[in-house]
């Protein structure tokens, strides 16, 4: 499903150039659950942003479902993104001014789903995430675990083929964290490909394969049995 070859990314300031990704090559198959680990500054988040088409690589190739997307323009990337990719962030990134229901509904609005269908799908997914009773609450009124469940609901409501999760349990206690990991595993079992950046060995164990990065390069791959 995803194949990146010799991917490069640099960050430049006036004086220094930092290499975030150094000719990195990775392949992820459909239905896989991959964890990416490594120390701070090793390029995990940069990789996730590029995979999520939120950022441009400076070199190399990125094939998404066998299509070269590295040189896609903003519009094409947005289009591909909204139909295929769901995001889960460490800090949830819910919009404070919108209710739980409205937050989850947002991706459907942007993909042009009709109102009646939207209600149906949002309710379905809220039900699945067991936060239906909180549908009219605002994010500030929820606990961290509940907020992350809403964020996951929002990520999956469009039935994406790929979910990119950036330390999804980073802001949660262990029981809420486990709950979120269970949810992701369920989604994966139903066929969604998941790529997750994490610092937690515990969380990484939920995945099929761990890719370890250092200074923008792969240093090791562990296959989980």
């Amino acid at each position, binding site marked *: 499903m995803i194949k990146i070859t010799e991917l490069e990314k640099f960050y430049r300031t006036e004086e220094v150039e930092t290499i975030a990704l150094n000719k990195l090559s990775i392949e992820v198959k459909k239905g896989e659950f991959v964890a990416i680990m490594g120390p701070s500054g090793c390029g995990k988040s940069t990789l996730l942003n590029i995979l999520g088409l939120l950022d441009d690589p400076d070199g190399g190739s990125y094939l998404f479902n066998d299509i070269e997307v590295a040189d896609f323009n903003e519009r094409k990337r947005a289009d591909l993104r909204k139909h295929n990719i769901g995001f889960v962030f460490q800090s949830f990134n819910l919009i404070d001014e919108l209710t739980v229901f409205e937050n989850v509904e947002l991706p459907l609005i*942007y993909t042009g789903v009709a109102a009646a269908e939207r209600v149906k799908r949002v309710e379905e997914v809220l039900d699945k995430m067991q936060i239906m009773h909180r549908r009219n609450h605002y994010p500030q009124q929820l606990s961290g675990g509940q907020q992350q469940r809403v964020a996951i609901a929002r990520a999956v409501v469009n039935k994406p083929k790929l979910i990119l999760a950036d330390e999804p349990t980073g802001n949660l206690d262990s029981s809420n964290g486990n709950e979120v990991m269970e949810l992701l595993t369920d989604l994966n079992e139903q066929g969604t490909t998941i790529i997750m950046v994490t610092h937690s060995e515990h969380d990484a164990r939920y995945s099929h394969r761990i890719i370890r990065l250092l200074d923008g390069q792969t240093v090791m791959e562990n296959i989980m049995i």
Partner: protein
Amino acid sequence: MLPPVVPSLVKGATWRIKVKLMLKNYIKIAWRNLKRNKAYAFISVTGLALGIACGILIFTLINYHLSFDNFHHNPDRIYRLYTQWNDETVSKSSGVPQPLGKAFRNNFALAEKTARIIDFDDNLISFTAGNEVKKFREENGVAFTEPEYFDILNFPLIKGDKKTLLSQPNQAIVTEHIAHKYFGIDNAVGKVIRLDNKISFTITGILKDLPANTDRKQEIYVSYSNLDEYTSKKRETNWDGVYSESKAFTLLKPNVSVAQANNALAQIVKGNYKGRDLKIWQFKLQPLSDIHFNADLDGYADKKYLWALFFIGLFLIITACVNFVNLATAQALNRSKEIGVRKVLGSLPNQVFWQFIAETALITIIAVIAAIGIAELALPVINNLFKSKMQFNWGQLTGFIIIITVLVIFLSGSYPGLVLARFQPILALKSKLSQKHIGGFSLRRVLVVVQFSISQVLIIGTIIVVSQLHYSQNTDLGFNKEAVVLLPLPKNDKPIISTMRNRIKEVQGVEKISFCYMAPASSSNNSTNVRFDNRAEDEHWGINTKPGDENYLSTFNIKLVAGRNFYAADSTREFLVNETFAKKLNLKPQQLIGKMMKVDGKTAPIVGVMKDFYNYSFHTEISPLCVMPSNKEYLTCAVKINMRNASSTLASLEKIWTNTYPDELYSYQFLDDNIAKFYELDTVLLRLIEGFAGIAIFIGCLGLYGLVSFMAVRKTKEIGVRKVLGAGILNILWLFGKEFCKLLIIAFCIAAPLAWWAMTNYLKDFTYRIPIGPGIFLAAISSTFIIAAITVGYRATMSALTNPVKSLRSE
């Protein structure tokens, strides 16, 4: 032994050092902050500078007008006499019958001095210099003046003897400026000048040049005793007519009240009028301080326009302050870390507050310096516009500027200062401050609504003034004003007129020619009594007389609605009247034909009724009027020419005219230029409103830009999230758009009725005016929308295009 240290002194000294250090630190930080946020600094300084510059200019303008004629001694005891007619309607004139001043002076002991002065415009002054005769046309003309005039008003004499000034016939006094212009010397005493080739005057005194702030513009004064000789009329005992330039001024004794003087004037009426006239005629006193402002009595600057300007100035300064508050509070979020650190290190809330006030002061002072520069540059433009000679009175301005500076610093600095001072240090340090902590987003909304209400009122005002002017200048006046050249007739003897007519007819390019008193629309109008159809008494309203020859109608293309044109004649044998005349009599035009009419002592039949035409500007109603031949009253030769060869035609006209009047100075005017002059004040007003509206809109846009920048910062995360979820650029733009649409609509709802009220009042001054239709309001709101969209669009697009990765990283 050292003296014991007084603790309070030490405390005072350390406190002073502390304050000094802190102040230095504040200013350093403020300066660096401005340098770092150049766009913010630029917008703040520009907005404030423009607002303050307008404030300075408007202050100067208002002050200039309030200073008119305030330099005379005893200004509160000086009055001008004026006439009021209480007929069907009340009308007023600043002119009085010629004998009035004398009667008031001789029969009552209420005044220390009373003086009469009669002006004539556009006179020819000539004198011999060596073998050459020099000629000057004086637009401000000459004034036949009684000597007491210079005891009442303070126009100091620098040469000559005040006691004998203008006391004998054939004496003149002129200003230094005139002396220089004519003779190139300061002391022109003893020189002889000739007025309109009729009377010679010997200069016996030189006046100091007139100050700019006086309505008394005459620079040549001649003996009053020569008046009858000049006009060839005996008006010294004539109480029936009022020449609008015949004035009388009086300096009342201390302790004499206006009521006493008005009583005396009422007695004069009793002694000189009979029958119905006793009720109609009234003379009153107008205070000197009212003369410049009273539009009913030729005042130049109506106080309501000055008030309008005052409010515009105030609005502009408020807009600029509002702008600053908007930007500064938006900026506060970016400063949270610095404030957090300061607080952790021991800064007290009031120190943070004063730090911000210091920053505001720095910006304001830079803005004030820029404003003074802008005002200096703009003053010549405004002087040009108003044909005034305003100067900055730095004495008064310094006070004004200091007050404005302090006000602006506290008005605009205290709110952002308070907001910053309230920050909780931990949240500030962690950059966890959000809208909730900054507060006042709705306050900012209110401020933007205020700004846009002001802009829209000004836009609506501009549109209405423009439309009214356009209407005034382009509506059918009822006669042709294009391509008509007006030549003056210094002499109008029959042979001169017929020779001139024959010679001008021969000129190529001349289409029509008419000899007349004045063009159909003119600022000078002669109104007199009329008696219709041998009735027992005169009508209760006057008739406007427009003497002209048989070609008057064809030259100006005036249409007849009944009857025929009169036959060629030298004196009045037949009359033409207008439709308004028929309406005043409640008769149909047809019913007037053949009826006798008595005007100015001449009785003749009405032979035709003209379609109404405007006889002055749109400010005044069309008067009942008559046109009749009367050779000796013709002052103008109107020539309709073909504009294709205008320059050669004009050259030929000049040649003929100069040959006919070798002693005179040639000048000509186009009728349409003359008519445009009726709207001079409106044009000035328009330019002024346009200018200030432009600035208000510009400052408003700066404010909007500030607000949208603030929103962009605040919504960074939201925009990022939405983009990640698939929002397109248009979706993001609408996030901003919907907010501003709401604010603009609210602003419009406030502005529209206000503007409607103000402009209805403005239009009241025009007898013929445009209606205020919905189109005007539509134009105003749509133009504001476009301006706002452009302003908001740029910043919003920048936000919409930001890579969401960056927005989310800011978390």
